[in-house]
């Protein structure tokens, strides 16, 4: 395990140890797609995710990131990411940070629920998290060794329209993605589709780790749609990935997803896993830290 991944994991578990009020989470199992359910106000969710990817004609890689997701209000969730990656037989590097915000547009639930997503990315050329696929992103883009692309610097804005439905225990989500490098590059487009459902819709009358309602399974599909000059499926990559999530009563959530490239431009295989925990009443803890009286 590399030094950066140890630091990220250590930060993750230290924060969890410091703020260890349990809160049973009800998280979706997605890695790429978003639904319209936002973080509860005042709660902080700390998440660690890994992606192992195969690379034809090059070295396989392990990209990993930590997320800090905070519910500012019931209609606004903000999230900060720290990204890094290890390319086998090469090196481990810090890839950059991302700051995203999601805004719920409508006051009430509707058949389709829109959420606006705005993200600022400050990354170098080594980013391999594949958190979204846009434009003409292809497997061959990841062939270059870390050293030369580490000095590249990209500042990007990403906008998404999240459309999501909760019905009969199912969640169906569609994300329409646009991304713009803030230097003079064209708008790029992408998509993510997802569906999931708990194994049981009724909660058990006993607390249990293995109750079927704690397991959520589904699938997601995502890929690029070209850019402003060449919109479409030509020279784009696409993935299909079954997803599974396990929401433990202790407040932990575990996720696992094997992903498969759907064409020759895609990585053949991506294995993703993640662990997260929600910290209840984080806003109150911070207030106490600064001496506010309860």
């Amino acid at each position, binding site marked *: 395990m590399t030094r950066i991944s140890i630091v990220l994991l250590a930060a993750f578990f230290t924060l969890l140890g410091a703020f260890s009020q349990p809160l049973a989470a*009800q998280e979706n199992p997605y890695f790429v797609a978003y639904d319209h359910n936002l973080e509860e106000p*005042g709660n902080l969710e700390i998440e660690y995710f890994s992606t192992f990817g195969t690379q034809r004609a090059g070295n396989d890689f392990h990209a990993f990131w930590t997320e800090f997701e905070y519910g500012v209000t019931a209609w606004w969730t903000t999230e900060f990411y720290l990204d890094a990656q290890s390319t086998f037989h090469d090196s481990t590097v810090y890839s950059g940070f991302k700051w995203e915000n999601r805004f719920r547009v409508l006051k009430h*639930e509707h058949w389709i629920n829109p959420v606006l997503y705005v993200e600022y990315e400050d990354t170098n050329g080594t980013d391999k998290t594949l958190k979204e696929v846009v434009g003409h992103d292809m497997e061959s883009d990841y062939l270059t060794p870390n050293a030369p692309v580490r000095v590249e610097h990209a500042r990007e804005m990403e906008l998404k329209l999240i459309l999501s439905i909760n019905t009969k225990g199912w969640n169906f989500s569609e994300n329409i993605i646009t991304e713009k490098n803030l230097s003079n590059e064209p708008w790029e487009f992408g998509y993510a589709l997802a569906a999931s459902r708990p194994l049981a819709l009724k909660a058990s009358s*006993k607390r249990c780790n293995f109750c079927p309602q704690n397991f959520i399974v589904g699938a997601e599909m995502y890929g690029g749609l070209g850019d402003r000059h060449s919109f479409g499926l030509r020279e784009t990559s696409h993935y299909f990935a079954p997803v599974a999530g396990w929401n433990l009563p202790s407040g932990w959530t575990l996720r696992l997803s094997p992903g498969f490239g759907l064409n020759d431009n895609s990585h053949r295989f991506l294995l993703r896993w993640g662990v997260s925990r929600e910290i209840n009443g984080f806003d109150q803890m*911070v207030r106490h830290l600064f001496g506010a009286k309860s």
Partner: protein
Amino acid sequence: MKPALAAFLVCVMLIAFSESSAGIGSRPSGLNSMQFRFGADTYAELRKAPEKAASRTNPLENDPEAITAGKLLFEDHCAECHGDDARGGRKGPNLRVADVQNATPGTLFWLLTNGVVRKKMPAWSKLPELQRWQLVRFLKSPGSRASTETVAKQ
């Protein structure tokens, strides 16, 4: 140091915004500062439920396990704000008052589904429908109703 300072300031501003948009209203005497500050319109959202939604009946009305399951769901998702005994907490109002207890199951289900997002009550549509009905069963169960109080008397 500049990025770290900027990140710190952003965090402070977010939490300040989060706090400033909390429950609005005056705090009646008798409530300590850990309890939700409510106003005359605290329970007004219940009256906004459409007639069709309010008239829905609970499909788990005769399910003997629904109250116990609802209690566990309440502890997991609601007690943080509304208090362990549903009498109100630091973020959410008392749910044992007459306004809530006299509301129809359909009204409570509608409120759980939609939340009151402008006042920090999240929409709970991410819980499957049957789990929301289990919560409604718990909220309207005899144990929950036993000590019903009215806001006006506090």
